[in-house]
Structure formats: C-alpha cells, structure tokens
C-alpha cells in the first residue's frame, strides 16, 4: 500500500514537472531569430531578425512593439533599466542607443569592432563594453573613461553593482574579476574558479554576486570579501544566465548542455536563501530568461523565424506575428 502510494506520488511529481513547461506565445518573424534578450523588468524581449534588424515584442503577450533597422549586423544588445531604450553594438564597433517608442537613434558611440558584451549601470550613466579580453568603460556622453583587461580569451559577461561602484567581469580565461569603477583598479578576483563563468548577477542590495558557468553550480559571492559564501546544488549542465526575482527571494537560471550547446537543457527556479530547487523545467534549448513583473520566470526559445516565450506555470498559448 505504502509502495503504491509512493509510486503514485512519484508519477504525479513527474507529471507536474512536465506540465510546468508551457509556452505562452510564439511569434513568427520575417527572418531567422537570433540572440533574444529580456528587458530588466521582464516585460519586453528583443531579438535579432535576419542580418540587420532587431524586433522588440511585449514579453507578456508577444505584441510587436518596435522594429529597428540597423546599418550593420548587431553583435550584442541590452535594454536600459527602464526598458525604453535599447543599446546595440554593431559588428563594425559602433554602439547605438535607440528609443523604443520610435526606433530613433538617440546617441552613437564609436568603439573598436567586436564589442560583443555590454552592461549598463542602473542609473544609465556608465556603459561597459568588451571586445575580446578588453573591457572599456564609457560615460553617458560616449567618452571612454577606463580600460581593463583579462589575461586572455574573450570577456563573456559584465555586470555593474546596483550602486555602479563595482563592475564584475567574467572571461573565458576562467576568471571573475571585480573592478573599482572610480579608479580602474582590480579590487579582487573570485578565488578557486577553474572553469569559465558565463552568468553574473548582483543581488538588489549589492552585497552578493551570483555567478555560474561550466561547473554547473550557482555560487553566491560575498562582494565585500570576494569569497564564495554559498554554493547551490550543481546541475549536469553549464549555467549561462542567472536572474533574481523582483522580490529578491528566488533565482532563475538557464543552462546549456555541455555535450552540445544545441541540445536540450533545463531552466531552474531556486530559493536564494536556502538554495532549495523550487522547479526545474526542460523546455528545449533556452536562450534567455527573465522575471516578468508578476514574478514568473520566463524563458525564450528560438527556431528559425520563430521565437517562443514560455513560463513555468500553465498559461493559454496564443500566436502572433511580426
């Protein structure tokens, strides 16, 4: 009897996990979709469409909000904190700031080619960009302020602390550095990192930095001492994105399959304090995640011209178009 009850519970648990992966909309664009990114508030999503166009949709229902034509191929893009501007670095090195209400260009910065990583401070006053191992810091007028560098290999992620005083950088040289933005001095290097880190996310109070990469575990770094305070249970996948929920209590993470990055990999939701895994979904190959204003963790999948946004709880599916 007990065995049957346990078996039933197991089956229910498995079914619940399967049911938890639900797409809320799919949009079909006019060209192949690439490199989707959510806005910090999780209410918008931008993706490359074809070689030189970016489309921005509502991440809540798939409504097309803006189409931005570009003079060159985009290399990277990010939203500002309010989600009303999009910063796009082009392959030729130009960085354009576009207004999402009109698509118009607000500012342009001339950088060297190949700025493939971007980060913006919360107040929008500082922009960090990275091309290969070099990181450049720009002020809001587009003037270069500082330059940092990793030892070798590409810098793959950058993140400003909430107060804008510290910049974290992660590189394929398997280093995570913390830089003093005011002086350009390297304040610390997170110790004992043997494999590359891809995901960096400061907590809202700026006291912790969440990192994750090929090792598969999300680590909580105490910023003041640059030491690892806690390590969440590792998955057998590489972490490539980490997001913190609006209430600061949960961590969303997206993974890629180490034995083939185009193979399916999970999205997880964990409790920040305890590290307890709340939910793990297997949506396919996730390319981006973001917390929506309602606190739900959303993920983006792409296949050819289709962009699908999914959520961990069941919702009605609808179709839209660009």
């Amino acid at each position, binding site marked *: 009897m007990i065995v049957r009850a346990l078996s039933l519970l197991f089956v229910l648990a498995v079914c619940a996990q399967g049911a938890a992966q639900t797409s809320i909309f799919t949009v079909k664009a006019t060209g192949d979709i690439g490199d989707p990114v959510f806005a910090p508030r999780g209410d918008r999503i931008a993706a490359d469409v074809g070689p030189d166009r970016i489309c921005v949709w509502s991440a809540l229902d798939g409504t097309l909000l803006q189409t931005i034509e570009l003079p060159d191929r985009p290399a990277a893009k990010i939203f500002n904190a309010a989600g009303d501007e999009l910063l796009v670095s082009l392959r030729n090195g130009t960085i354009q700031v576009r207004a999402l209400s009109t698509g118009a260009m607000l500012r342009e910065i001339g950088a060297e080619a190949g700025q493939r990583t971007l980060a913006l401070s919360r107040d929008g006053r500082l922009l960090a960009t990275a091309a290969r191992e070099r990181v450049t810091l720009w002020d809001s007028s587009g003037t270069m302020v500082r330059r940092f560098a990793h030892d*070798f290999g590409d810098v793959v992620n950058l993140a400003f602390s909430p107060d804008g005083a510290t910049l974290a950088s992660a590189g394929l*040289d398997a280093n995570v550095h913390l830089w003093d933005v005011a002086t350009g001095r390297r304040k610390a290097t997170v110790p004992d990192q*043997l*494999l590359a880190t891809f995901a960096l996310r400061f907590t809202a109070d700026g006291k912790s930095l969440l990192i994750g990469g*090929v090792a*598969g575990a999300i680590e909580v770094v105490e910023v003041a001492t640059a030491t690892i305070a806690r390590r969440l249970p590792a998955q057998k996948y*590489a972490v490539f994105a980490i997001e913190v929920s609006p209430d600061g209590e949960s961590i969303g993470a997206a993974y890629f399959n*180490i*034995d083939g990055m*185009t193979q399916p990999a999970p999205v997880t939701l964990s409790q920040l304090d305890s590290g307890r895994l709340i939910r793990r979904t297997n949506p396919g190959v996730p390319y981006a995640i973001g917390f929506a204003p309602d606190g739900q963790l959303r993920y983006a999948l792409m296949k050819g011209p289709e962009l699908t946004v999914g959520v961990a709880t069941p919702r009605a599916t609808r179709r839209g178009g660009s």
Partner: protein
Amino acid sequence: MSRVPLTRRDLLERSAVFGALAALPALDIPAISAFWEQADALKPTPPNALGPFYKKRAPEARMLRMKADRGMPLAVTGRIIDTRGEAVRNATVEIWHADHGGHYDIAGYRFRAKLPLDADARYHFDTVMPGHYPDRVCQHVHYLATAPGHKPLITQLYFATDPVFEGDPDKNFTKDPLIQSRELIRPVRIAGDPKEMYAAVSFELCLERL
C-alpha cells in the same frame, strides 16, 4: 607557421635598395635593417577561438592516453618559437581536447595538460585523436601558449585527415566556420608498427613578441 613569402616585388625593391646603398651612403641604415629584419620574420601562428571549456591548473603531463581509451592513438610534436625563429624556452603551453566520443572532461583533467618543454622549447604529447564535439564541425585540439614578453597565443590544431575535409583541406577547410586559416590544419602521418600504429602530427607555435 611559415616564412613571409618573398614576392617578385620584394625582390625588385630589395635590388633597388642594394643599388641605392652603393650610390647614396647617407641612407637611413637602421630603417633598412628594420626592413630586412621584418622581411625575414616568421609569421605568428594564426589565433583561433579559446572555446568555453578551458580549465585552469591542468597537470603537467606528456602521456594523456590510458590503456582503455578508445580512439586512434595520436602523438603530437612541436616547438615554441618567436617570429625570429628563436626558441621560447620559458613558454607555458596548455592543451585540451574532447575524448574519442566528443566529450570534454569537466570534472577532471582527462585530455588536458600543461606540456613540459625541453631545452630547445620542443614538446610532445601522446593522446587519442579527438572526437567530433557535437556543435563543432571539425576534430581539434585547443592550445594556449603564454610567455613573458610575448602575446598569449590561443589557437587550435586541426587534422588534414578529418572526414569533414573529404581529403581536400585546401578546398574544404571553410566547412568549419571557425577555421580562418588553412595553416592550422596539419598533415597526419601514420607511424609505428602494424600492431601499434598511431597518428603523428607536428605543430609548431610561433609567438608574437610584445
């Protein structure tokens, strides 16, 4: 790695310099010396992507192959030189690659090593022919070479016998979008006796001076 080719134009220009040297003793000799030095320089080994699976603190080792390992035994030899052809004895060379099945060892250090160099900056290591990593077109071995006073070199070694090249790497090397230079595809020689055959490859690394 190869020497900068001497073109017909180079020859004509050099001949002109010799003529001018005889006729005009006030010429800028250091500039001419610099020209000759540059003309004789070796081309640095082309760089190639580092990839996401570099792991720090690889153990020093030459023998990476274990008895139970599947895959064609592979012996790779080479030398670390600078653009003047001089041995870079204080270089550090790290290599890593996928196993026969195309899997990288993340938890440990299988098929990862820091290579010892001899007094002439030569290296060798024994391993197995890497498999095809699912998201890459070609078999490859990653290299990271660093030395004081030189630019770090991140590159990859490819094999002319890779089925992807269909026997013609000159024509087909662009099938892997990451291969920007034909030079990184090295000939593979079958060596050893019939009972213990292995693939032998030579790959010299030429570092650029700072």
